[in-house]
């Protein structure tokens, strides 16, 4: 098994390094700095860390004001609270004014586990996707997360980064270089291609291995930037295969699957199956148990593909 690290841990490290390099970086949190890992930055740079307390809406506004004085604010809390509680603040203040505010949320998806549905954001990407000016990035592993944090620091504009709680395997090759808006193709399949984001990239790779043994050539694409979509890659892939499967630890409504369907139905209609959470809330359990319960395992991807191809 390859090295495993939670994307939130990679964020904590990356933010600390970024803080050393750039004095304009300021970090805000809403009483979850231990969990979001911004606590590392806070410890090293207390004068550039602002705990706004349990007031997510106020945190977004304060981050916005800081950006107006030329600072580079990173505002973090759990994905549910960041995108849900403060949605309209993100809309009116951050996106409408097109501010340089970085929203980096942890604890996305059902792999939050035991805390249950109240803490499992399964609709955050949908909420952010509808906002003009917003860029959305869902890193697949620790290495990619580190690169994403550096990349968004050099990019002007609102960005939402979706991170997770649990350890996930390193899946991206050593030489991989993240670029905003650019998907990474592990391998293009002649029959079917799986387009995945976040933790589902490793699951998709696992599924492709199983399918290979059964003689089905399945490609895997990590589409870490969900908005703006890498439409060029999508179009090329759609033209070269029969079936596309999207895989996300998120609702099938409004997330990656929706984004891919919206684009391809207008530009190159092709059969698409969406793997994701089917209009339901999460629940308590161990992350692995929940991934099974919500049909987000490699076996689920394999089964879906086999059914669609016959």
């Amino acid at each position: 098994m390859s090295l495993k690290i939670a994307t939130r841990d990679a964020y904590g490290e990356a933010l600390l390094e970024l803080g050393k390099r750039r004095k304009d970086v300021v970090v805000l949190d809403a009483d979850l700095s231990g969990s979001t890992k911004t606590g590392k930055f806070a410890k090293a740079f207390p004068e550039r860390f602002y705990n706004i307390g349990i007031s997510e809406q106020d945190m977004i506004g304060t981050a916005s004001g800081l950006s107006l004085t030329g600072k580079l604010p990173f505002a973090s809390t759990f994905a549910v609270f960041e995108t849900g509680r403060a949605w309209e603040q993100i809309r009116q203040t951050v996106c409408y004014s097109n501010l340089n505010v970085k929203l980096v949320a942890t604890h996305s998806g059902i792999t939050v586990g035991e805390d249950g549905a109240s803490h499992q954001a399964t609709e955050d990407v949908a909420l952010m996707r509808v906002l003009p000016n917003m860029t959305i990035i869902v890193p697949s592993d620790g290495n990619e997360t580190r690169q994403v944090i550096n990349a968004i620091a050099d990019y002007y504009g609102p960005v939402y980064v979706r991170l997770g709680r649990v350890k996930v395997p390193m899946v991206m090759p050593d030489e991989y270089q993240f670029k905003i808006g650019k998907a990474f193709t592990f391998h293009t399949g002649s029959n079917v291609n799986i387009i995945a984001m976040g933790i589902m990239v490793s699951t998709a790779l696992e599924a492709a291995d199983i399918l290979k043994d059964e003689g089905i050539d399945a490609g895997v694409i990590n589409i870490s930037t969900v908005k703006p979509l890498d439409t060029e890659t999508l179009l090329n892939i759609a033209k070269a295969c029969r079936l596309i499967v999207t895989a996300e630890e998120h609702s099938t409504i409004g997330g990656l699957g929706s984004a891919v369907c919206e684009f391809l139905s207008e530009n190159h209609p092709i059969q698409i199956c969406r793997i994701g959470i089917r209009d339901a809330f999460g629940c308590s359990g161990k992350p692995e148990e929940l991934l099974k319960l919500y049909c987000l395992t490699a076996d689920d991807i394999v089964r879906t593909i086999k059914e669609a191809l016959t």
Partner: protein
Amino acid sequence: MRSVSGTIDINFLKEKARAIRIEVLKMLTEAGSGHTGGSLSAADIVTALYFYKMRHNPENPKWNERDRFILSKGHAAPLLYAALAMTGYFDISMLKTLRKMGSPLQGHPCSRTLLGVEISTGSLGQGLSVANGIAIGLKMDNLNSRVYCLLGDGEIQEGQVWEAAMTSAHYRLDNLCAIVDMNGLQIDGPVSHVKAIEPVAAKWNAFGWHVIDIDGHDMKTIIDTLDEAETVKEKPTVILARTVKGKGVSFFEGKVEYHGIAPTHEELERALKELGG
């Protein structure tokens, strides 16, 4: 504006407030829609800020040492636009384009389309948080600039205002001055009927603010209070400005229905007569 000798010409400011009210009314009538009452109630305060208190440079709107003004009650956009035009941010003739397609003068202030607007507002309750962020950023940069944030009395029913109020006090933002336009009215009626906010002074006090309760139409009091606020250390200051909604035009004064409608041409004529325009 301070005169060269350092004395303050109250009559000059009163005259500016009168002129601003005239521009607000003309622009609203031309647009055919917009918020009259809350633009007029805050006209004296905004005049004092733009023509007396704030250090700003219309030729260099992004000057980093400027004082900032955040119009949290964004529906009073006509008032902000009049102040910006009359201090030279753009040509006064542009006021005629208010709310029209393609105009930088959007129905509610938009910072992407109009220089001089610090942040887009319109959704109530958000400005004080932004003002806090700016105030913190200015302190980090060791700048002496101050931040002014104008809120409505109905607006402070929003929970985020009180989240922000706690933040301002916690971070001892003495470079921040909030002003509440206490005109007593919101859309559905008197604030005291819709959802009472009194005792307002005690609330801000309890949240750790220095509170000053004033007549929001007395120019001398307004400028003295703005000066006083600047001397308060270690605490943010809030000015509770007791005002009359629609102030300056007798038939709009205290009328809840003139919150969100523009004067007709006939009303404009009568209003201008009253204001000597």
